[in-house]
């Protein structure tokens, strides 16, 4: 089949490192009147003590609590017509601001200020702990299926810190986090050489580097040897967990260990999940919802972590479907892939879709700034412009081989989340 190559995508960027170790990346986008300023800290839930989880995320909240110089972080951004927010995951913590490009220095001023002078008072920590515990309740405890992913992680991982979610293992860990641990966390992880500043907007790279040096150049680095993360031992037998909850429909999840972000298996896993669940014409929807009428919703996805991650199948059962039928149906789908039953048209379709999605994602300065920071964090910035090529190169044989190696009983963890 003649491949339908789309337009050649390329995010042009320039990259430098300040004397204190801060990485700076700049992308010029002349279509926007806004500038996006992203700062990524290479710290996430992976860096937490198993007895004090949820700290990285709590810390993301504390970063908005003001400094000795600027007691209120949000107001100056808002005065500058800007908007800011942040997120934390298992691997990193990301802070982002978009504002009119003439006000870029306001963003740099505030980010440089909170990189070194955060106000970590007892009172600020106490209130923020309560906010985060309410977040824990709202998103995980007071929702149907809210604890599903937590249960899954605890089964799939035995040693690696991916066994807890970013919010933490339990609200008590957040409530009990000692002030000195919180201060040590800031000291250990929030400094120039553990951060990446990325900027996208209608500003040339030289100017971005000059401004980065003006605002961040004077911050002394506090190098710290990040303790090694425990390696997850190879799983050798099938795992299973069954729980009962007050929910309207039973959900089944089957998860497998797969390769890390820089391995070829990452891309093979991603394309396999697209074959299974990328869009309404994908296999799981066609076969299991429309054909066999077993589920009301189905999905297959990769967790996308930096270290060895998960490949996950999930489905919500119709009241008429038995758990055995549902589970067997997933294994049949895996079997089809392992046997190499993949069509040329189908494969071309998911590759096209990947390429189009990448292009749609580049319409916006914030996505670009965030992605530049992310690729630099995983240690392969040029990969941002190579991924489409890698996807294009994946063959049916490689995908079948990936499916055979990954979808093994002894590599599986099955969670039955049963409706009472």
């Amino acid at each position, binding site marked *: 089949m003649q491949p339908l190559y789309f337009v050649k995508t390329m995010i042009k960027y320039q990259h430098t490192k300040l004397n204190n170790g801060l990485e700076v990346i700049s992308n010029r986008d002349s279509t926007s009147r806004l500038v996006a300023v992203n700062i990524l800290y290479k710290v996430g839930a992976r860096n937490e003590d198993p007895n004090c989880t949820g700290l990285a995320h709590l810390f993301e909240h504390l970063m908005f609590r003001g400094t000795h110089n600027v007691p209120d972080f949000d107001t100056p951004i*808002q005065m500058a017509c800007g908007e800011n927010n942040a997120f934390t995951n298992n691997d990193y913590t990301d802070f982002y601001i978009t504002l009119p490009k003439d006000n870029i220095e306001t963003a740099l001023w505030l980010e440089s200020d909170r990189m070194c002078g955060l106000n970590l008072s007892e009172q600020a920590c106490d209130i923020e702990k309560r906010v985060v515990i309410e977040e824990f309740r709202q998103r995980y405890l007071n929702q149907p299926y809210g604890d599903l992913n937590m249960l899954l992680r605890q089964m799939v991982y035995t040693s690696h810190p991916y066994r807890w979610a970013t919010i933490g293992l339990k609200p008590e860990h957040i409530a009990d986090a000692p002030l000195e641990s919180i201060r040590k966390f800031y000291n250990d992880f929030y400094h120039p050489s553990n951060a990446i500043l990325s900027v996208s907007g209608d500003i040339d790279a030289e100017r971005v580097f000059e401004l980065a040096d003006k605002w961040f150049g004077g911050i002394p680095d506090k190098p710290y040897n990040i303790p090694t993360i425990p390696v997850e031992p190879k799983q050798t037998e099938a795992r299973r967990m069954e729980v009962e909850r007050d929910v309207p429909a039973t959900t089944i999840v089957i998860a497998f260990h797969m390769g890390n972000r820089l391995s070829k298996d990452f891309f093979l896993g991603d394309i396999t999940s697209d074959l299974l669940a990328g869009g309404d014409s994908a296999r799981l929807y066609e076969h299991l919802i429309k054909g066999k009428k077993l589920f009301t919703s189905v999905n297959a996805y990769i967790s996308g972590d930096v270290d060895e991650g998960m490949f996950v199948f999930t489905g919500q059962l119709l009241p008429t479907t038995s758990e055995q039928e549902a589970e067997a149906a997933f294994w049949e789908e895996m079997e089809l892939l392992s046997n190499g039953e993949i069509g040329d048209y189908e494969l071309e379709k998911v590759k*096209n879709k990947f390429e*189009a*999605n990448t292009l749609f994602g580049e319409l916006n300065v914030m996505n670009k700034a965030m992605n530049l920071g992310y690729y630099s964090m995983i240690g392969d910035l040029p990969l941002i412009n190579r991924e489409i090529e890698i996807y294009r190169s994946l063959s049916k044989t490689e995908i079948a081989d990936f499916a055979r190696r990954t979808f093994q009983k002894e590599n599986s963890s099955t969670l039955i989340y049963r409706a009472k």
Partner: protein
Amino acid sequence: MTQPPLTIPDSIDIQQAEKIVASNGTPIYVINCPEYEVVRLSFVFHAGTITQARPFVASATANMLAEGSANLTAQQIAEGLDYYGSYFDINIDRDYSYISFCSLSKFFVSTAKIAEEVILRPTFPENELAIYCAKRKQQLAIERRKVETIARENFAKAIFGEKHPYGISYPESEYDTLTSDDVKTHYRNHYIAQNCIVVCSGNITTEVLECIKSIAASLPTATCQPKIEIPPFSSSHTIRIQHDGAVQSSIRMGRLLFPRSHEEFIPMQVLSMVLGGYFGSRLMQNLREQNGFTYGVFSAMVNFQHTGYLALATQVGTEVTEQALGEIAREIETLRTQLISEEELELVKNIMAGEMMRILDGPFGIADVTTENILCGFDNSHIQHNLERIRRTTPEELLSLAQRYLKPEDIITVVVGDFN
């Protein structure tokens, strides 16, 4: 280091949409941004839930459009879009249904062939409808386990009246009796030229425009349309609903006011912004930052075709529910008795200007705003008008609005939680 100076945008240039009328009278609005290699085509029909003759038929019609047509199966439609990486998106609210197609410019013609089938020749097969109904029924059952869903549905009943088409909600079991004929009738009555506007944005070449005109011109015209009756609104009082085991209570408050065309809509938007419209708002400062009662609280003016309302929503810890209600009442009372400071008002005005800039950054955002303007009877010069109206708002005007519109006896309160 000291705070850098600010530049505040005092005008927003946005291009007018070019209006073309198809041969059957359907208006087409064109926002040509050739610098972006994408096209989005949206059909907006006056076919929202208030137009439905029986429960769930309006949303079922919109969601079933792509489930089979005279010349293509559901699978062929899904695959035809996925193959080119194109998107199809359905949205429905009380008044309108929005059907959008989004593609890379070079694949627009192929995407339009599918769009034509979806918009003009849907067949609503029984089998697909049965799958859709089973899925939605289960999703709705899950949604209704959440305190925020229960609060939202009861708030609508309380504000508009239990039987009013804006306020009513239906049991999930209504999905059991929905037939393909119901859906076909709804489609025939409402998906017609007189009920439709078309909005397109991105790189609109002559070829693209010809395609769009040809689809729009083929929409059937009806000689008479069913008249939509809007009964008078009847707001009620405070409602409390017991939800056993909830660790948080969901609170919704607000009152019926007026639609966006009303001269006080914009200043009321400013007032709701002060109260709870941004991160540093009074309610956010009080409930989250000072008290840690909640993860978030939000208030806004909401616009419908025939009216508009002010709404405030939050989820708070079960044990602090009464305290939180007391603090909300206190913040509203403060707005009614004290002038807002010039600094705070300036901040809110800048946030609103920044929000407009962000929405209008890129072709799709411009198209969304254009659509909203057209549906309210305005053109895009209204954006500058709104910005100026925001700038002209004074502390005295806000005080007067609060005194007239936020009387405690006029505010409806819905609380869902565990009161035992």
